[in-house]
């Protein structure tokens, strides 16, 4: 039980730091900043746990699985919620409907279609920056890089496996 308490204690401290520091440091209010804050912590705790097991033989190997599993669950949940509340299309619609006292009509909600337009333009430039899309002139057909094609095929396989239907046209 000691392993579990140590891991949970560390994650609680990390969570509190995320909430407190985000109010003081602008960098933790950006997608990249908050992602790095979690990714660096994940890598360091994994290395720390490996050292504690391998070099100092303080814990069994299952401790490493516990650290990776719990930190992974925590970071993934945190980042998903962070990202959803930052710019989710569906949640923006829910909040917009909630803001109207007598409910919202379709024309009122269609104002949010500009959000899709902005998101699409920014996402495309993000994908180019990440090296997944080849930069092309506006109006030209998008081209995938090698890694972009791997990502796209993986996504298609997941879609096929889960028998999902895409929300985007």
């Amino acid at each position, binding site marked *: 039980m000691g392993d579990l308490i140590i891991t949970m204690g560390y994650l609680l401290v990390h969570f509190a730091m995320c909430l407190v520091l985000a109010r003081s440091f602008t960098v933790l209010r950006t997608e990249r900043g908050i992602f790095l804050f979690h990714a660096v912590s994940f890598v360091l705790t994994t290395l720390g746990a490996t050292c504690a097991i391998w070099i100092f033989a303080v814990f069994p190997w299952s401790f490493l699985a516990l650290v990776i599993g719990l930190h992974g669950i925590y970071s993934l949940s945190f980042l998903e919620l962070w990202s959803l509340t*930052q710019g989710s299309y569906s949640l923006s*619609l829910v909040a917009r409907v909630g803001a109207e006292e007598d409910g919202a009509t379709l024309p009122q909600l269609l104002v949010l279609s500009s959000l899709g337009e902005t998101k699409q333009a920014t996402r495309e430039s993000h994908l180019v920056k990440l090296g997944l899309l080849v930069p092309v002139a506006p109006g030209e057909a998008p081209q995938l890089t090698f890694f972009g094609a791997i990502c796209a095929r993986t996504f298609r396989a997941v879609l096929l496996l889960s028998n999902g*239907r895409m929300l985007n046209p």
Partner: protein
Amino acid sequence: MNWLLTALACGLGCIAVHAILRRVQSQRNAVVTFGLTALVGGAVLLALTGREYGWTSGPVQGALALYFFGCELYTFMFTFVIGSISAWILMNALRPGAASVRSESDAPQHVGMVETRLARLCQVGFLGKRGDRYFLSAPGKIVAGAYHLLRWCFAHDLAAATAGRGQRPA
């Protein structure tokens, strides 16, 4: 290391069962279906490893943590692929003769994106429709409350104010 292999087998089994269930009962919510499948898989993993190593032992905790992390990762993957604009742009580029995402036909596309999402929000019960007006249902009100609370916690409003944009269109 039997616990690690058992966790892996349960995870893969869970994905396979979900794939079958989605084809048999495609109308059911994919996330709820996977959540229930993952819980059953977790119970099987607990039974298999608990009997061998002891119910509260390190290997059981490690196996369960890894298994549920894998399940969450898979849920994230398929919900991301279904709803993410980035995933759509990448998969769209795979199609031969794919049009640019910034083509002239964008406006109707975005209108379609709003309508598809509204239909889905009504389907999952967060929104209701009375005449031509959409309104929040009881679960929708909880979601909207949680949305505003989390935006405050993550300092998103502070970020929007700093950027001089005010709140995002909400």
